[in-house]
């Protein structure tokens, strides 16, 4: 069954296949801006549709399509029955396609406000966002709300896809106005890169092939852009962080701590400490099924054996010795609230952060962000789909860091204590945050310490 590969050619084919990197991106925008059509286009024009899928698509287009029997590419991604019937996208759908240059995972997300929570799922792991705008309508409230959430969840590269350009005669003027409006709005959102591309998802112009109708545009097509933008990688140079997932022990003879290295790297012989107890130990083995390693880096799932018999369990975090104490029972956080009822002080949740779970109480709702202006607004509650800042107290401390310093130790979900739904998505701003606003913070500004932390001068290893 496993003959030696027949020839060199096969080996180099495999090699090339496994070297292609992956870009994860998300498409979002308001309902009917053309997200599903766009993804269908990408799959179709990048020749990623199989014959049988095309046949089924043609059949479904006649039955459910909105294109008078012509192919309705939206039906490729709107897979749920309710979506086909209502002609809307409810949930995030993941699609996979590849070109010679790169593999892509695209998360197509719902435009309906009611399903905004599903968009966050796709955004959290995206390297880039394609934000669709209907050229006739320009920026909408939903464009802005989505931008806030993208920014909050750490997406730093945005393609502003001005779609349906065919319906406004490929007006350069209109295109440029929308792009500059957006750039003005997005100034506060911390995106690194905003690339405006005029396109027609329906005809495919500037999606895969250049639009002849827009000779004034000399930028790349969407696909060209997606192929060339750098993907985000985990940082092997950051200090070592290892949230323990599971204790692997065999009666008497073996005890190891299983987890995924969150940042940095570890070598056999390195000394580490357990954040909770501040006990120290030496890493004696890095165990994998494929044999012990001398060194492991961020992103690898391994099992570590330690020199001391110390108390370590799920939820504990191993760090370098030089790391300051990261163990806290209060935090300020930025929160995307997806619960139905408004969030107010006194509400209690289960909070899950990395591999730890704690009881959390909302001590204060500090403010919400107005999606239209991205300005802070004082408030005592957060409504469904609001993004805002809160202070949480925990029944027992856990190891956390600002999101800026470490994504795994700086992000959490809030879980309803009755039906266990996930009702909030949060980022740690400041561990050990004070309950009352600090002096001089009345306008809701973060303290200097917090700003420094956010800029990456946080506790270092």
């Amino acid at each position, binding site marked *: 069954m496993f003959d030696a590969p027949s020839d060199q050619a096969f080996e180099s084919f495999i090699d090339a296949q496994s070297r292609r990197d992956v870009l994860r991106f998300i498409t979002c925008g308001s309902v009917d801006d053309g997200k599903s059509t766009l993804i269908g286009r990408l799959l179709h024009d990048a020749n990623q549709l199989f014959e049988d899928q095309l046949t089924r698509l043609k059949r479904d287009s006649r039955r459910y399509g909105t294109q008078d029997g012509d192919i309705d590419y939206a039906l490729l991604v709107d897979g*749920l029955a309710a979506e086909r019937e209502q002609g809307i996208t409810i949930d995030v759908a993941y699609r996979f396609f590849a070109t010679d240059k790169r593999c892509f995972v695209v998360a197509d997300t719902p435009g309906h406000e009611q399903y905004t929570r599903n968009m966050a799922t796709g955004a959290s792991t995206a390297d880039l966002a394609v934000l669709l705008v209907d050229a006739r309508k320009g920026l909408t409230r939903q464009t802005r709300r989505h931008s806030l959430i993208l920014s909050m969840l750490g997406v730093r590269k945005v393609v502003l896809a001005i779609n349906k350009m065919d319906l406004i005669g490929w007006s350069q003027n209109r295109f440029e106005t929308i792009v500059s409006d957006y750039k003005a709005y997005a100034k506060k959102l911390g995106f690194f890169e905003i690339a405006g591309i005029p396109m027609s998802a329906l005809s495919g112009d500037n999606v895969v092939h250049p639009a002849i109708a827009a000779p004034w545009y000399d930028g790349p097509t969407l696909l060209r852009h997606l192929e060339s933008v750098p993907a985000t990688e985990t940082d092997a140079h950051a200090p070592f962080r290892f949230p323990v997932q599971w204790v692997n022990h065999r009666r008497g003879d073996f005890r190891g701590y299983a987890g995924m290295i969150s940042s940095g790297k570890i070598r056999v012989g390195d000394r580490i400490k357990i954040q909770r107890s501040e006990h120290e130990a030496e890493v004696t083995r890095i165990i994998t099924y494929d044999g012990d390693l001398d060194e492991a880096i961020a992103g690898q799932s391994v099992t570590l054996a330690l020199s001391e018999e110390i108390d370590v369990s799920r939820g504990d975090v191993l760090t370098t010795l030089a790391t300051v104490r990261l163990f806290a029972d209060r935090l300020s956080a930025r929160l995307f609230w997806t619960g139905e009822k408004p969030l107010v002080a006194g509400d209690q949740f289960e909070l899950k952060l990395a591999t730890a779970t704690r009881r959390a109480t909302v001590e204060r709702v500090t403010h919400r962000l107005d999606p239209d202006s991205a300005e802070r607004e004082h408030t005592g509650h957060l409504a469904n789909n609001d993004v805002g800042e809160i202070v949480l107290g925990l029944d027992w401390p856990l190891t956390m860091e600002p999101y800026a310093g470490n994504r795994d130790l700086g992000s959490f979900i809030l879980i309803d204590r009755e039906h266990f739904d*996930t009702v909030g998505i949060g980022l740690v701003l400041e561990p050990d945050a004070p309950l009352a606003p600090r002096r001089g913070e009345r306008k809701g500004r973060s303290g200097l310490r917090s700003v420094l932390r956010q800029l990456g001068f946080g506790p270092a290893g």
Partner: protein
Amino acid sequence: MGYDAPFVIPSASRERRLVGRAALTHLQRLEAESIYILREAIAQSESPVLLYSIGKDSSVLLHLAMKAFYPARPPFPLLHVDTTWKFREMIAFRDARAKALGLELLVHTNEDGIARGVNPFVHGSDVHTDVMKTQALRQALDRHGFDAAIGGARRDEEVSRAKERVFSLRSANHGWDPKRQRPEPWRLYNGLKCKGESMRVFPLSNWTERDVWLYIYQEKIPIVPLYFAAKRPVVKRKGTLIMVDDERMPLGPGEVPQMRSVRFRTLGCYPLTGAIESTAATLPDVILETLAASTSERQGRLIDSDGAASMERKKQEGYF
């Protein structure tokens, strides 16, 4: 961005990440992610089980489970829902693998369905699948009280799968409510559930068919020989090649099995699984043929073509 910027999440560390680039390959990252998910599944459940369907995805899943808990054995049994219509080679392979790896294998068949004589030839694929797979799975999960079932489904297989979470909640009746899926950001899988509810966990969610084949090659993972081309007795029905795997297959008048060189892209109940004509008898040949293929792999599964929303309906009813 400046001090006044109300909403800047720091970029310094994000950009810095680009420096330490590409230390892990795509397959290494997928592997690490799946191992992480497997460990979360057992850390967040009382009584987990791995649904072992004997196909190539299950083979990959089992291999990942061996890695995730090494040097311990995976802390859960394997469950195979046997419709009694699986290819004989699948059953032989199943028993050999469980034995070689030293894992507990539970086999469940819907005895009620057997007693009623449910049969894919007589009752069609819909009824057969519902009784012998969907209901059988529910029976098995209820009987053993499993609260987490780990399966090898991938998002690239089918449109409703593309919308499934990694940790996917099922009601006490094993139903799936696509409108009530929980947000699932980053790697924060929420495994909490009310009494009676259970989780389906899909560690291979982000794998594609291409990744699965490349990984099987890289890791030398054993798979059922039916994936490789060989001369096998087949008949052609409604344009699909069906292998005559045993004497239960009713042949029409004048229908004579022919020996043809075929292989399977997906494995299930033999009367419902189409073969493709191929001479790809080695893994490199299969990989080359697969990556250049012009039909998607589920084409071979007759149960998916019933209708656009058929898979979703099956899942709502408790099909895996």
